[in-house]
């Protein structure tokens, strides 16, 4: 049974959980969103700063489980510095991995540390934890690009 758990709680995830990267809310930013996962109480405030078509900064304040915290940290590592277009591509690849129920072999070239979340896709109850930051980032990025009317800042998927 611990091998099942080890597939979920990869060392990379536990490392990011204990020492999250890019933590804290910073200026400047074009959009700030607050996303919650009402079933477990995870909450995330995330800011996006775009500059010259690139993701200049992702900063955040988050409370939640190891999977959601680590996912936020990995996202920031992965997307900061990429062009918005590339970052949206990574987002799509990560989303597909999470929805794969364990059937996709993750592409390390694209996903880097985020391949550690492949095991999460086999735990349906935890997929939402891994996706919280990614959905927040996409929302904030869309708002920064002016493709979404403000203020659509709080979303939730389910009420308990």
């Amino acid at each position, binding site marked *: 049974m611990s091998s099942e*758990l080890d597939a979920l709680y990869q060392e990379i995830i536990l490392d990011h959980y204990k020492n999250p990267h890019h933590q804290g809310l910073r200026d400047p930013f074009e959009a700030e969103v607050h996303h919650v996962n009402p079933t477990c109480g995870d909450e995330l405030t995330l800011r996006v700063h775009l500059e010259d078509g690139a993701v200049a900064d992702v900063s955040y304040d988050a409370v939640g489980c190891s999977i959601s915290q680590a996912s936020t940290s990995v996202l920031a590592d992965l997307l900061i510095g990429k062009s918005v277009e590339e970052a949206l591509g990574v987002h799509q690849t990560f989303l597909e991995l999470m929805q794969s129920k364990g059937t996709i072999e993750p592409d390390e070239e694209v996903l880097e540390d985020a391949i550690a979340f492949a095991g999460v896709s086999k735990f349906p109850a935890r997929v939402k934890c891994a996706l919280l930051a990614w959905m927040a980032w996409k929302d904030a990025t869309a708002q920064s690009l002016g493709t979404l009317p403000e203020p659509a800042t709080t979303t939730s998927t389910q009420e308990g």
Partner: protein
Amino acid sequence: MIEGLLPDLEVVRKDFPILTRTTPGGGPLVYLDSANTSQKPQVVIDTMVDHLERHNANVARAMHMLGAEATEAFEGARDKVASFLGAPSRDEIVFTKNASEALNLVATTLGLKGDLQVGEGDLVVTTEMEHHSNIVPWQMLCERTGAELAWFTFDEQGYLDLSDMDRLITERTKVVTLTWVSNMLGTVNPIGEIARRAHEVGAVVVVDASQAAPQLPIDLAAMPAEERPDALVFTGHKVVGPTGIGVLWGSRALLEALPPFLGGGEMIETVRMTGSTYAGIPYKFEAGTPPIVEAVGLGAAVDYLSALGMEAVHAHEQAITGYALEGLASVKGLKVLGPLDVTRRGGAVSFEIEGVHPHDVMTVLDTRGVAVRAGHHCARPAHEKYGVQSSTRASSYLYTTPAEIDALVDAVEYTRSYFRLDN
């Protein structure tokens, strides 16, 4: 042997087919999420199947043989529920789809024109330890009417702070609504004492018995009139019955004073295009075809509990909860959120473990076959009070064994070692 356990526990467990399920690894399933929903005995399942196979028809409207049988079964369920609660009259039992709907029925109709209408400047009082379903409908009532919502807080041990009684229960107070047993803290609240005070100022007293009905013997008729609530709600699926059926008990005086909730078939007396007159209670509040087979299943469920005896169920719950509190207390860094005195609490035990998020605790426990709930348990304000967002909750019931509690404690210890909390 722990004193107070159901004497034929192994026999009782055989009534619940799902308890023989195993995990994918072949281990036993340890179901400790009964405050969320309880498991169902064979007799409830069989009664519902038999009804659908042999007696299915609409109730009250169908005059043929099957219609008469279905009506008898449905109204028989009302009698069984009335007897389970010790209700002064069977007409005071209203079937709803769940406890939330029952609370919404009361909160909504109290905002409508009538003798009891809540208005601007009135006070509606609840508590900080309510399930969201006993907070939100009252917030909505206050928004609609301009009334003000106020609430009892609770202390570090999880007991209501009654020193606020004079400030909260005044001439302005029109409604006092509270849970009998907290779904998160487990606290058993002194509903009689609060109802007595509320009645002195003429307020309507509503009790959420969603967690009390499964565990405590209830005898409404035996309560002193001043301490008896005016309305009490519970849900079928937590008392070994099916989902889709809830109960509102309301005193005749309250139900007759409240205007109808939903309009439609069966809640009317005469309908004319220029206006309608309404049926008497309880039908006034049962518009449309009701959840018939669910009510029949609930009837079988409360009969099952009555046959075991609610005193015996309560004693079992206390014995198992005491054993669980003792076991969890042995785990380093574990803190129980709620009373530690087993005589003043129910069987839902919420806890946090320093250094591991409840969601992660839940997942590790689940891989060992131990089913618990992680989250805010629809009681976010109560969690805020403790400065936490969520907790892990283990909740036992009449079929829970000491060995299952041992499995819980072992799994919690394993969680601590898996996350290397001592390294």
